[in-house]
């Protein structure tokens, strides 16, 4: 192994689905899942998760806080198809039906690094994702869907991570979800992929990047 050099690189992501801003809604929960390319495989951790229901804070921020942890490790041979996290937020409507409140997607940060809580250092991997929901095709359907609590939904939340076929849909934006990521990569430099900022401290790569496979 050591002699041959690594044949995969690893990407460890942890963090949390921290909070959300949905000014009009309350009692929301959130699901997340990862979408990744064919060359990727999760090696550890949960690919999907569903959070608790949270109520709005009583202060001015009116934040919906989940603090729902994400922890997953991928291995891959190819950066193509870099993992994306797909979020979907649900909550009850007026009649108590569980309806979709927003879909959103974000790529897992490319560069390694952690979120710092210190004020001075930038929040490198804090992501605020705008959320959206598909719109009904007509006014009448909008009414019936509201009335019956069966709002339009994506057949698969993973649709939001793909570009194909989106042109047939119409969406409305619905609020924000804030995510925090800490990313650790392994062997990416050895395989010739340089994503991070220049290594400032310490361990410089023992060898120059090996370049692409030859």
């Amino acid at each position, binding site marked *: 192994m050591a002699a041959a050099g*690594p*044949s*995969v690189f690893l990407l460890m992501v942890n963090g949390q689905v921290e909070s959300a801003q949905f000014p009009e809604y309350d009692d929301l929960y959130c699901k997340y899942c990862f979408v990744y390319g*064919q*060359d*990727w*495989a999760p090696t550890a951790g949960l690919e999907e998760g569903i959070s608790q229901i949270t109520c709005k804070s009583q202060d001015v921020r009116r934040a919906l806080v989940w603090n729902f942890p994400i922890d997953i490790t991928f291995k*891959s*041979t*190819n950066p*193509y198809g870099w993992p994306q996290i797909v979020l979907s937020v649900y909550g009850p409507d007026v009649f108590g039906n569980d309806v979709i409140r927003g879909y959103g997607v974000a790529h897992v940060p490319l560069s390694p690094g952690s979120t710092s809580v210190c004020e001075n250092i930038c929040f490198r991997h804090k992501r605020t994702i705008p959320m959206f929901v*598909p719109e*009904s*095709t*007509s006014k*009448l*359907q909008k009414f*019936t*869907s509201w009335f*019956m609590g*069966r709002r*339009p*939904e*994506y*057949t*698969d939340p993973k*649709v939001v991570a793909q570009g*194909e*076929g*989106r*042109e*047939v*849909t119409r969406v409305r934006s619905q609020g924000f979800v804030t995510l925090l990521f800490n990313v650790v990569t392994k062997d990416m430099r050895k*395989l010739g992929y340089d994503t991070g900022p220049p290594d400032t401290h310490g361990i410089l790569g023992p060898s120059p990047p090996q370049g*692409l*496979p*030859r």
Partner: protein
Amino acid sequence: MNPQEEKVKIITEEFVENDEDADVGRQKTSRVQRRKRKKQLPTAGPDEMVSEKSHLGDQQEPGHEDPNADARPLSMPTRRGPRSLPPIPSASRTGFAEFSMRERMREKLQAARSKAESALLQEIPTPRPRRLRSPSEKELETEFGTEPGGKIQTTQQEDDSQSYSRVKFRDSVRKIKSKTPDEEELLDDKDAVDFLLGLDRGAEDIVAVRPADYESVHIRLQKEKELLFIPSRRTVPTYKKLPENVQPRFLEDEGLYIGARLEVPRTNQNIMENRLLMQEPGRRWFGDDGRILALPNPIKPFPSRPLVLSQEQDIKAELETLYKKAVKYVHRSQHMIGSGDPPGNFQLDIDISGLIFTHHPCFSREHVLAAKLAQLYDQYLARRQRNKAKFLTDKLQALRNAVQMSLNPAKTPKSLDTTRRAINEYKSEIRQTRKLRDIEQEKDRTLLKTIIKVWKEMKSLREFQRFTNTPLKLVLRKEKVDQKADEEAYEAEVQAEISELLEEHREEYEQRMDEYRSAHQQWKAWKKAQRTKKKKKKQGVEEHPDDEMEEPYPGEDPVKPVPPEPTNQAVIEQEVRERAAQSRRRPGEPMLVPELSLAGSVTPNDQCPRVEVLRREDVKRRSVYLKVLFNDKEVSRTNSRPLGADFRVHFGQIFNLQIVNWPESLTLQVYETVGHSGTTLLAEVFLPIPETTVVTGRAPLEEVEFSSNQHVTLDHEGVGSGVPFSFEADGSNQLTLMTSGKVSNSVSWAIGENGIPLIPPLSQQNIGFRSALKRADAISSIGTSGLTDMKKLAKWAAESKLDPNDPNNAPLMQLILVATSGESYVPDFFRLEQLQQEFNFVSDEELNRSKRFRLLRLRSQEVPEFRNYKQIPVYDREIMEKVFQDYEKRLRDRNVIETKDHIDTHRAIVAKYLQQVRESVINRFLIAKHHFLLADLIVEEEVPNISILGLRLFKLAEQKRPLRPRRKGRKKVTAQNLSDGDIKLLVNIIRAYDIPVRKPITSKFQQPPRSSRTFSEKQAASPTTHSPTHSADYPLSQVLVRPFVEVSFQRTICHTTTADGPNPSWNEELELPFRAPNGNYSTTSLQSVKDDVFINIFDEVLYDVLEDDRERASGIHTRIERHWLGCVKIPFSTIYFQAKIDGTFKIDTPPVLLGYSKEQSVVAERGFDPVRSLSEGSYITLFITMEPQLVPGESVREKFDSQEDEKLLQATEKFQAECALKFPNRQCLTTVIDISGKTVFITRYLKPLNPPQELLNAYPNNPQATAELVARYVSLIPFLPDTVSFAGICDLWSTSDQFLDLLAGDEEEHAVLLCNYFLSLGKKAWLMMGNAIPEGPTAYVLTREQSHYLIWNPCSGHFYGQFDTFCPLKSVGCLIGPDNIWFNIQRHDSPLRINFDITKPKLWKSFFSRSLPYPGLSSVQPEELIYQRTDKAAAAELQDRIEKILKEKIMDWRPRHLTRWNRYCTSTLRHFLPLLERSQGEDVEDDHRAELLKQLGDYRFSGFPLHMPYSELKPLIEAVYSTGVHNIDVPNVEFALAVYIHPYPKNVLSVWIYVASLIRNR
């Protein structure tokens, strides 16, 4: 100081005076105000008019601030006016005037205030009456007169007054209240007072109404004159348009090419010219000839349009878009060699219009001369048409003019140097042109002379021989010329020439003189030097004796130059005149115009000498025809036509050559027939193959010359060929002529129906290189081709001085430009992404070399093998070579037809073809897959209608636990989050009926008579009669059969427990895991699963193998054998699409099952089910489903194009919608998709088609047997479901001939063919669309016999009565006849319960009815089917090969055992198989068994014949394997295997395989 400034000052002063004069207080106030405002206006700035408010603000405040800020406003430039207003006088200058004005104003204000205050309250609401206002207005006008500022002011005033009247009150109040402190600071005390009174003043001053302005016509005209420019229509004199001192130059006269100008009316041109001259003094809009440049400059290297535009246009020009009609891709002709091959797709039209002999052996002398004359005359005509002499003369004239012009120094502003150079050039050109012209003129003259000479010869010949052979007649027409003018022109020409020559000579002379002078000077100098040197020498010898050595002596003494001789004018003149006399028409001499006509009369035969008559007769006997040879093969020939007396032959025939290959040669052979003696090949004419651009209708007639080298001597007047003859009486001056002539023809490419030239594709041109070269070759565009020597060409072009302006030469000029600019080749194409290289990730080589990149690329291209490849390794070294092996093999195999797997080449080709169709459909599907609909992405509830809402309400009141619960549909799972092991196939095996039972174990003492008895029984084959006989043999206690069921699916095998008896009941559920290919559970992937579920029924037989009877007490030693009884095969795709399969299926049992027999007796005696006992065969009841239920994929939403009438298509849609509304579950088919992907109306498929004659001949008197045989024939065509091959995408219908060519198809094709056969047999037959078990939606055939209906299963060949309970067809959707479609609108759809009388509109809804009559659609089927007899020898060979392969396979499957073959048994079986075929596998069992027993004696048998249509080898092997015959591992087992293939017409093969295992009974 500007005078205008003064004026302003004066005006202001006048104004002041006027103010004093005016005595109406209010008016005064307002006027003062106005005046102030006039000054103030500039301050308002440009935004004054923008909004009312700002305007008001501006208006009022300045009014108050005025005294302080007087200088400021004036220093601003005035806002409006046609010209900029005079600059401001300085503050100091106006100071006095302003001051006095202010003083007066104040007084007036004081006076007016009281009045105003009283008036205000009344007057505010209404505008001030008009008449009050008018006097002041008039004043204003008179005062300001034409001063523009006045006008503005008035309008301004009006605006103001209006707005003021609206808001004045409010505004003023607000002003007072909310004055900002800043503003207040600016106000001095007086203004403050004013300001406080602002309210009043504002009120007064606003209410201003004024009459409409009037301007006198004169003033207006004057103003207009200043403002407007009306270009004159008169012609602009040329000198204005050209640079000064330049004469217009007319390029056209100089012989240069000028394109045709657009027609523009003269007046418009003049207007434009005038305008241009007015606007821009620069004369760049005018050309050298003083006209507007209307044409693009042809030699300009870049476009003259503005850049932005030109870019767009450039791109368009370079990416030239050509309209090409869509071409229908012909699948079949490429891969198929069926009967229905369309003839050649490409067509070459050869039009042979006629033949003219320019020499023929039968020519008389006169003919020879006539031919010569005709030729000369043609030449003359051609020359006259070109008229080069005239052209050159004109050119010469133009050049002379040019020289004259440039010689005139007054008119040429160019530098002297260029002028001189130009003159020199002109002169050399003049010289050249003159020379050319002289040559041309001389040629013309000689030609004319020759014509006359030949004509004279001919005349003399005619006189001499006293008869005329040719109608040729030459008339010389004289054209009178004006003698004087002619002479003058002649003289002028001569003079001009002389002067030019003189000048030339003089120049030459001068040049020579110069040379001479310099040479002379040199010589003199040398002489002098020589002399001084000599002198020096004399002195130097004494002083410096060695100086002598240093003195260089020139090698030789320069010769004294001789002065050149001056030119002699007389000599030159002499020369010129001589030449003119020689080559030119003499002045005054009439112009001769020869005219050749055929008006002469030919001497009739009786007046001719005998030899001539002989000749004429000989000519009459001759006839000529042409053969057309294509690629050295004769393809057609013209009619034979007699040779006319004028040696012309008219054919006028057009040959359409339908070709497949690119033509290599095209030859015409000229044959001559003399009488009846025979034909001789006169000559071969090679025709050029037309360029691809030459298409029929555009090809000109061309004359191709030919000549032959045959020698013919004739004994009559004819001169012969290749033989010397003479015109002279003494035989001198001999001539030898060869037979020659011209064929006028045209060769062109035909144009197809849709306007596409029928030209073979470029790739097919085996000499594609040449054509490709031609395409890139610029020279080809000017007519020549194949020139490659660029340098030579460039040299030639330079020498010939091509006119660069002529667009005809443009490609050539470009080429030369390129060729001369340093050998670099500038491509004539536009390269997209020329920077691609910079953006390339790695070089192409590396990309190709790297296995990883290759893998990645293949995956992204969705190549099936790699579509779901996961985790492509990082390094090449980790990628195994074998990853690509399959893919590469497939690629390689695509073109190679492999006969190894297929044995039969025809099947191999078909398989390849199917593969290709499949690929193309799949590709189409892949594209469609990336096309999403909203429903694919978003789940949205449908808008509920009343019924759903009602149902919902109803549901609320529903019982929680109903007494009779109804089955609820399971929730369907969309296949996406599934993985291996999630899906299970549930097979519920309930029971079976009529399983064959074992024959009693054949004992050693088997009596031969029994067999004979059964044989006799067979004659009266009827189940009721022969069954009871056996029952006596079986002891009741004996176990008849112990069947169990084994289900195998995807190499997983499950089996039930063993039950007893022929009617076992298992009621067991077997669970088999389902694994999707590549772990891909997407719909498409599931659809393409080809696996079958095999349900095999076996009999478990226990054999006691205990060797020693003594051990029987202590141990049991038995061997379990299983004997295959039959099988049911259900494709997974059926289960997938049906979601569940529930019913009783017929077990596919072999016709003969050795050791077993059907045991009907027991059943019949017990007599439970009379209906069932009637039917033969065994049945099994099954329930198959999947857990969880999957959503079957939808078919492709692709609208296929169609050639059907739009109305018809709409009607079909309507019909289908109506039907679906009423009975959504019933299948209604109106249009289908044919194999080329077009929508076709379904009835077009039905048409009587002849079955093979062979089948009709089999039972000439028995229509029922014939029908069965035909059904059997159809069922023998292999079955290939579309759903598997096209993955549920669409159902393609092929026509019957395609089906027979392909020898594969699904139910529809079988049904269509069968239905067509029945129609042709005279039956009433319909295609029946419905649901069957286990196929699902399928097509059957319904026929009407005398009194009842029969339902035919086209794939098995079986037929059922309408009331047969075992009929697999369970529901009927619609019936389709050749001219109509009937949809079932009865309550029930089971064939048992419906009425098939289609004439009843209440039961059957017909598509074509009175409202929409049947339009008489033509059929897509062929006229008739052509059957080739199948090669018997090939079938026999195939039979042997299959047998060999199967034997090898069985041995392979038994690796641990020895496989013995019982040859004796094999040969017995082989004899038996044809018998089976003949009886179609019915009721031969007993006979057969007896036979076998008789032959073999003491053996225990287990075996059966398998029968299947032949498609490939693999299914045969599978079938044999699935029976498990090879599984017997008794040590002394022997095997027998026989194969028989019965060939039916058109390569339909019926395969019988007999496998048996034999165990010798001890």
